[in-house]
């Protein structure tokens, strides 16, 4: 094991919530996100790499998680994609809007969701995204642009349909 239990607990407390949010939103499946979170830390603990700073450890965790997500989506699906989120038909308009927008996010490909989350939630630069996803540095900018365009259009469409709905 690469660290003692105390150090692991500390790292887990600091990094797990963000990592889980990433896995949850990209996989769109709570049980899968929990499994992948556990597997990410297990792999992290079993890897023999030199000492690294906490920031590097965090990037490394996101890298493992990204690879696990990719492996998961390379395999053929075992059944229909579970819908763990509540139906958008109930709740206040603001929640409904958020759920609709979330549906929009789920219309993107896994790779697109990864890129967007890493860039705009984690604040990773193109080089870090390239490392985490295994994409070429030059491809990241273009793929990110396309994913962003797609999501922006979906959000705008969703927002305009919401406006129509509440008129």
């Amino acid at each position, binding site marked *: *094991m690469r660290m003692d*239990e105390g150090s*692991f*607990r500390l790292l*887990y*407390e600091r990094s*797990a*919530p963000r990592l*889980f*949010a990433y896995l*949850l*939103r990209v996989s769109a499946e*709570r049980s899968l996100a*929990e499994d992948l*979170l*556990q597997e990410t*830390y*297990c792999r992290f*603990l*079993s890897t023999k790499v030199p000492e690294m700073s906490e920031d590097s450890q965090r990037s490394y965790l996101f890298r493992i998680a990204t690879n696990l997500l990719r492996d998961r989506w390379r395999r053929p699906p075992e059944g229909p994609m579970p819908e763990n989120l509540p139906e958008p038909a109930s709740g206040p308009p603001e929640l409904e809007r*958020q759920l609709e*927008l*979330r549906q929009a*996010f789920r219309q993107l490909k896994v790779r697109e969701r990864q890129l*967007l*989350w890493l*860039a*705009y*939630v984690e*604040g990773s630069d193109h080089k870090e995204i390239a490392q985490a996803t295994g994409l070429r540095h030059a491809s990241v*900018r*273009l793929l990110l*642009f396309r994913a*962003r*365009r797609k*999501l*922006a259009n979906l*959000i*705008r469409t969703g927002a305009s349909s919401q406006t129509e709905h509440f008129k």
Partner: protein
Amino acid sequence: MNRVICEREDQTAAAIRSGAIDDETASHAQHCPACSDILLVSEFLREDCVLADHEQTALPNASHIWQRARSQAQQEAVRLAMRPIRFMKIIAIVAFACSPWLRLLLPIGRELAASWSRAFDFNFAFVSKVWPTAANQAAVLLGFGAATILLSLSSWYMLRQE
């Protein structure tokens, strides 16, 4: 609208990350499709991240993950330690399966040794005395195979106990 990349993109993204969007960036984004997309998408994703934080009612327990990682590490260590034993087992099984043919090959080996001894003008007569008869050869091979399998099994059992 066809502009793929805006040179202020990184600046806009950095402003969003810092949480302080200055007037210049805001007014630029109003007219720049790339930067307005960045603003819109970032705002949505950040809101969603806050919601995701609220949904984390029960993150997997750190101790549970630690135990799981430890048991995986132990399994991996056993797997590595078992490698030579598995190798020996395979050799033992192959030797056992091939013993009838090995028995046929032994006289050829004896003949070869004898011809070498003649070639080097050296008396290897003791080879014939020490070498067992055909029936004993099979018995020796059987014994050797069984011993190897038993050795492997006992080592595996010992390692498993550890």
